[in-house]
């Protein structure tokens, strides 16, 4: 590849023992992944690279929407791991992903959280209708996947119309988390994975069931020049080691 040529030209010395076992310099693949995957994927990186000596993974973390827009704009990503089916759907429609490679690889769960020191007696979603509950933090259903799931869940539970005027919309999950942590809202909806990052300041009240599961899809980007390596990565994530790591960070592993 270009990189390889350049490197040899510059150094002019043959590959030394310290370089990876493969005779060539590693291929670099870029994985655009939802921000909520940051820690899990970062954790996986050395393991994957150890297993695939010819591949060097770069991650690009961000909101799924932003990542999608980047890919639309021609960003050189090889793999897209979204926290949201709809973003993946959009790319699929535009044939910007390799549809055959698309698969759901992990699941998240929606939870209701309250401040750790809350003195409101909230034990379930129904309690949110209590007039003492003044503000509820949720992600913006139009822009944030978790918000969308929240609205769906609440609508399914027949509560949405009663809660609608209590909600404070946040543009990302962290914002909901901060609001709850600081007691600015009486309750909030976040992913389990997010809730697990603040164990001391919030209390997880309950898992909220959603009919449409919170699936994380992954796929190869159509314009990728390293499709094989990209597939390797997807396989790794969906494989045993990948799934274990994901589980460690609060994700729900897809049952086969």
């Amino acid at each position, binding site marked *: 590849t270009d990189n390889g040529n350049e490197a040899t030209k510059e150094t002019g010395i043959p590959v030394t023992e310290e370089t990876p076992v493969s005779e060539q310099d590693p291929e670099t693949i870029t994985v655009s992944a939802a921000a909520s995957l940051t820690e899990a994927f970062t954790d996986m990186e050395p393991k994957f690279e150890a297993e695939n000596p010819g591949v060097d993974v770069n991650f690009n973390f961000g*909101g799924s*929407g*932003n990542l999608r827009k980047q890919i639309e704009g021609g960003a050189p990503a090889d793999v897209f791991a979204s926290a949201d089916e709809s973003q993946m759907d*959009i790319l699929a429609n535009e044939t910007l992903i390799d549809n055959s490679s698309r698969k759901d690889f992990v699941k998240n769960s929606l939870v209701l959280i309250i401040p750790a020191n809350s003195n409101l007696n909230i034990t379930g979603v129904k309690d949110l209708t209590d007039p003492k509950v003044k*503000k509820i933090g949720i992600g*913006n259903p*139009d*822009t*944030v996947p978790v918000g969308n799931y929240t609205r769906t869940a609440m609508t399914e539970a027949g509560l949405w119309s009663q809660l609608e005027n209590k*909600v*404070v*919309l*946040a*543009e990302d999950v962290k*914002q909901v988390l*901060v*609001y709850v942590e*600081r*007691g*600015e809202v009486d309750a909030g909806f976040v992913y389990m994975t997010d809730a697990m990052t603040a164990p001391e300041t919030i209390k997880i009240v309950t898992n909220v069931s959603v009919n449409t599961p919170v699936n994380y899809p992954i796929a190869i980007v159509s314009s990728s020049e390293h499709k094989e390596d990209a597939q390797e990565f997807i396989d790794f994530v969906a494989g045993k080691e990948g799934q274990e790591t994901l589980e460690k960070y609060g994700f729900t592993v897809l049952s086969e």
Partner: protein
Amino acid sequence: MTPMLDQIWFPISITFRIAAISSFLVLCSGVFLAYIFARRDFRGKELAELLITLPLILPPTVIGYFLVILLGKNGFIGQLIYSITGTGIMFTWQAGVIAAYTVSLPLMVRTAQAAIEAVDKELEYAAYILGKSEIETAFLITLPLAKRGILAGLVLSFARAVGEFGATLMLSGNIPGKTNTMSISIYSAFQAGNNELANVLVLVLTLMSLISIALTGKIASRGKSKV
């Protein structure tokens, strides 16, 4: 009003209300600070100058986070506000003013300070000799002569306040019909893939901002040519 108009009108009015109030506050306090920095020497002045610049350096969300900690229900100042008013300031448009103020203050201070430092001290002495106190002199001589710089600072602050997004979002949330500024609305529409709305909003925001900036410039530069 059609829903579309409504979606545009409210964010506009709240945005310009926030920007106007915050710019006014920035003008008053920023020029004051700039004057002090330009004309006084005190221990820790350099540090103070630098700290004022901080909100530019940190990502707005982080500033928003700090503001939440400070102004939220359990925050140091927030508690105070709560104990006085009985309601918090979070999730109100006033919180948006605070956010906008915080991020645009450094623009005014730095710009105005440079302009004030460039004012010829002899002219100030001339005013002192005519019996003018330092405050009178500042208003009569120094600030009018630093007008261009202050005006530039005002334009920058206003624009920044209009464009403020990260900190505002943290502090005032996005409560449609209550706190959704243009920036937040644009962001939302943009994220939701509602490109049509996003584009309209961008256009309207741009036009309105340009008009208000141009007007400010016109008003403030009357008689400029004579100086």
